[in-house]
């Protein structure tokens, strides 16, 4: 029995189990923040996200799960590529974002982004593949962002870059079952 193992709080455990990242290893050098293309838009910088996740207490979690930063991560992997401790802040962002989503904590500025992801996945769940026109329609309705990019649609159509009829794969039932199981499944 090793009495000297450090106690791991729930966020650290979730991050380690889902993303394979040991938060204690982060020494807050800030190289992730320095290279992040989206950091200038974020309310919390990537190193602050790592720090608050390290702290893991209720107040830290409140700031974390309600932050816009989680939603602005582009998954570009610059942070993971350059981290001198070989950690993956983007993967940590994924875990925290999923937690925030399941707890219904979506900051106002992130609603469009969430709406886009959901619209995307809804079309995949329906036909097995992403379908542009249903995606855009759904996205526009849920985000209430009706007018931006309005001219792009006709332009895409004219260039034959917009499939009119979405493809439904034969195995769409399989795909739907996958979605259902995941919805019910493990939470990070």
């Amino acid at each position: 029995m090793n009495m000297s193992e450090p106690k791991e709080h729930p966020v650290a455990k979730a991050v380690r189990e889902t993303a394979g990242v040991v938060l204690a290893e982060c020494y807050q050098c800030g190289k992730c923040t320095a290279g992040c293309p989206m950091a200038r838009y974020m309310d919390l910088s990537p190193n602050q996200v790592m720090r608050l996740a390290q702290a893991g207490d209720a107040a830290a979690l409140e700031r974390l799960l309600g932050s816009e930063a989680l939603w602005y991560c582009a998954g570009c992997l610059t942070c993971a590529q350059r981290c001198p401790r070989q950690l993956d802040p983007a993967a940590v962002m994924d875990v925290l974002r999923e937690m925030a989503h399941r707890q219904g904590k979506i900051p106002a500025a992130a609603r469009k982004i969430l709406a886009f992801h959901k619209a995307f996945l809804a079309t995949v769940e329906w036909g097995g593949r992403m379908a542009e026109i249903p995606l855009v329609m759904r996205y526009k309705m849920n985000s209430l962002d009706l007018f931006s990019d309005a001219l792009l649609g006709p332009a895409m159509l004219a260039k034959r870059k917009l499939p009119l009829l979405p493809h439904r794969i034969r195995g769409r039932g399989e795909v739907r079952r996958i979605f259902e199981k995941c919805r019910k499944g493990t939470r990070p």
Partner: protein
Amino acid sequence: MARIGVFICHCGENIGRTVDCPAVAAAAARMPGVVHSVDYKYMCSDPGQQMIKKAIVEKKLTGVVVGACSPRMHERTFRAAAAEAGLNPFLLEMANLREHCSWVHSDQAAATQKAIDLVRVMVAKARRDRALRPIRVPVEPTALVVGGGIAGIQAALDIAAGGKKVVLVERGPSIGGHMARLSETFPTLDCSQCILTPRMVEAASHPNITLMTYSEVESVEGFVGNFTVTVRRKARYVDPAKCTGCGDCFNKCPLKKIPNEFDAGLGMRRAIYVPFPQAVPNKPVIDAAHCTMLQKGKCGLCAKVCPRGAIDYKDQDRLEKIKVGAVVLATGFQLWDHAAYGEYGGGRYQDVIDGFAFERLASASGPTGGRIKRPSDGVEPKTVVFLSCCGSRDDKAGKKYCSKICCMYTAKHAMLYRHKVHDGRAVVFYMDVRAAGKGYEEFVRRAIEADGAEYVRGRVSRITRRKDGTLVVRGADTLAGRPVTIEADLVVLADAVVPRSGSEKLAQLFGVGYDQDGFYSEAHPKLRPVETAAAGVFLAGACQAPKDIPESVSQASASAAKVLGLFAKPELEREPIIARVNRTTCAHCRACISACPYGATRDFDVLDRAGKVLRTVAEVNEGLCQGCGTCAAVCRSHSVDLDGFTGEQIHAELSALL
């Protein structure tokens, strides 16, 4: 009749928690030959030792077994106690009940039984111990110091001051090391060469010091007190006896554009050159790889202009053997190559330089006369960004460790820049500021508060170079929680400190260990920082671990003290655990001579009274024998035995166990 005393130590909780010491003592009391058996909390303490001494006298013990920690810890302690009580120290044995028992087992019953077995084995051995006398070998009171930087120079001066002779071997053409390249030193901002060159001159002129520059250690034989070191004196092509250092030769050499290593490639030298004007010895060498005469047989200008005829193109490397009694390794460090960081330009940007290059820019005697200029276009930079921890504290692309000196020299660089360019901007990206030395914290605060260096906490992710030469530095301010971009004219990287190239090979020659990063291993990190596992070989300076000048000098003086301690007696006492040949039964098959890894066995002629050779047998050199027992193992006639570990004793130990 054997009268063995057994003393079982609890070692506090270390042994006592797992092994039932009273039970072991009780079991030992019943072993054959044992007349006294006790247990005690701390045998190595004063009362513990008194117990042993008292029992030796009162019970007239003929041998002692102490069941305690590893003999490596306290064999010497207990043997000294036995000697004080009048018992030959080699009649005392230790049973390792800690490292070999209580520390590696948790089952108390099994551990206790094992402890009893271990004690029984050592009792069986102790009964067959014979009194041995230490061997005395002469000590050659000359020291070898390898490396002519500040640590090597200091060690040489201290040993010389102690009245002993020193040979100082330096790989480069001049002594001085990296300290000669620095502009000013922290925290005093002393001019580095001003404080160093007097020492260099002293080392060169001290009657007890022999300087061998442009030389390297080629091979090593022998052992503490009696090393034979072969030094390769590399061909200088200039006779130092004739050369006056006038400089006519290098002023005339037509090859002017060889990047000078001393100047980190920022300045040029000739093919015949002195690395810097204050070099000691101030005699040039010819760089054979570049010299037209030595490569192609053309030119020869330097020989023509030399007024003393000191140039000798036919010079060759020479091997010189020296006898020394102790060695100090002071080979120092170099900087890690930041080409490994593709995100900082992969070493391709001329204006992204390392700390030594900045020192040469800042140095009054450097290639720019002390003016800070961009290497690419010679323009004075108006914004200089300094990156700490470049390659240090990096598990992925660099070294895991902290290089210790960079926080301080970066603060110094920022200050020097601000002193020279009053309207310039110095930005330092740091992770932590490590300023633990005397006056160091105050120095860093001065850089920030008095000299206007801007400190931003965060590592830099990327450096890119625009066509106009501007360097775009993308860092972070972790405390404010935002990315920070600076447009810089010059970037200085605090590259990690690594051991000098070739240091591993040198360590192998001397039998000194080194860690995964190539730093030399000290005998004990806390209590024996300048000794190594190789007796008679000591360490000084950054070859052991990154350190600054005061620490290097301290370590150098410490190793000099160790050397002088070694030289204090004309003879060295060696443990008498050596092999011995029975001349009567030796058949002279010479198997032991081939097998000995130390070359300690040799032929010996047995003579009659007239001096005629009766026969030849094998003989062991007491001075060289390390007591490994290989010869005893290969001897077919069982003529070789090891004092302190005889065949009979080993047999008895095994019988006691089985």
